[in-house]
């Protein structure tokens, strides 16, 4: 894991534009004070404390978020949500098109959380976690 981070870090310096960064955002009225584990619980259907949003598959921001928070790859998440859906446990988070739309969606939805490229974040949402 450490080596991976080092490589990621090296990549960041070599090509600062190719690597997306990611922060966890929330509606300005909350929730706040969420730990990484709390966010993970929201995204893996263990908690209904807030409404999570997901960026559509294929986004680098999404991949980085999941590497950081849930440790699950896209195919693992697909299997997981298929199981949750068909056992009636719950539905996957609603998806938005990209990082900028994520900010709009979270800003407009009370008690929601999301994640975005810091470059897209403005003061319509609150940054609640950074890696």
């Amino acid at each position: 894991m450490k080596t991976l981070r080092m490589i990621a870090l090296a990549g960041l310096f070599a090509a600062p534009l190719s690597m997306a960064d990611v922060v966890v955002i929330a509606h300005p009225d909350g929730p706040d004070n969420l730990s990484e584990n709390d966010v993970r619980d929201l995204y893996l259907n263990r908690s209904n404390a807030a409404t999570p949003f997901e960026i559509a598959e294929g986004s680098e921001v999404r991949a980085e978020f999941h590497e950081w928070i849930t440790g699950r790859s896209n195919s693992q998440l697909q299997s997981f949500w298929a199981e949750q859906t068909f056992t009636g446990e719950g539905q996957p988070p609603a998806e938005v098109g990209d990082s900028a739309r994520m900010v709009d969606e979270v800003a407009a939805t009370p008690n929601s959380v999301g994640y975005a490229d810091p470059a897209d974040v403005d003061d319509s949402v609150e940054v609640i976690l950074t890696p």
Partner: protein
Amino acid sequence: MKQLRTTKTRLAVCLLVSAGVTGAHAQEERLDRLESQLERLQQDMRDSRDTDFRINGFMSTGYARASNNAGYAGITEDSDVRSQTLFAVQGTFDLSDQTKATFQLLSRGKPKAEGGDNWETQLEWGYVSHKMNNGLRLRAGKMRTPLFMYSDSLDLGYAQPFTRAPNAVYDQVSLSSFTGADVTYNFDVLGQPIRTQVFTGHSENQDLVGGAELRNIAGAVVSWTDYTWTVRGVAARAETSIDNLLEGTAAPQLEIEDEDGKFYGLGLEYEQGNILAVSEITRRDTDGVFPERDGAYATLGYRFDDVMPYVTYAWVETQDDDKRPQGPLAAFNEKREDYSLGVRWDAMPGIALKADWTHSRAFGDTSGGLSGNATSFATGQGNRFDHTNVYTLKLDAAF
């Protein structure tokens, strides 16, 4: 969709109107109005997403063939596609924020050996669930009997790492669903998430060979996970009846009625980074002549992005063979080892392709629990096969 179209039309009208405006003050007023209108529209769009009815589906299809007619998982030298194929549709109605009704219709292909265009559609799940504010979830109706780690996704190949859930364990109890009620409760003990489920009900399937019934099922599941490790324990009991244990043989009918049946299972899963390890050990213990049977497996997989090769070792052995020393009942004595080598490829979102080679051997003095041997065993001719190789290709999809 209708909602979206209305939204677009309204938006277009708004824009046209705004284009015709002159005068700074009027324009500002209009802008304010437009903004609040837009906000309302966005809200409408979000609301339209929260529908009261959802439909999902999944399917599997594949090809299986064995090196001989031993009949592991019902697969013989005659290659078969139909028995590997199923299609399911699941619908969920939201009756309220906390109450849902769920059904699943599943259509399954019957093995080629049964002939004809044999497809059977049945209600696999049909229940009402209610989540209470204190975290209890109650369900009533027809549900999956939660005996195994993958019980809930027994037919949902897409949610399973392997091509076929290991028979040594998943064959222990062939009645996979029950009609009754269950209660699930999640709570934390010392900061550790524990999930408990208790269930009770009745299960019957006259289509199974011999016809089987479980009465007064009562069971409990406890599981814990930290997202890397999952540990799951289950214990259940039921009064077990089988109409004719020796159906399909020349021997006279043999009925077992309301024998006390118990089931115990322990499961362990490790999933971290590229590594997946799953293991389950189960015991089925019924009074009388019906065999007491232990089964276990361990699967190890390694993910290379979307491709995951895996190996499985599985073992099954009946523990009370002395109750059935000879005659037709001796066919129930079972000892077998299965070695599987397979791969899962997540070809695209919602679709996985799988391939598997399973080699079965080490039957000892038993039939190995394989249908091709059971018939010759029942007539005192002993084993026809001392091993089998089963090749499977499979496509699993969820949508």
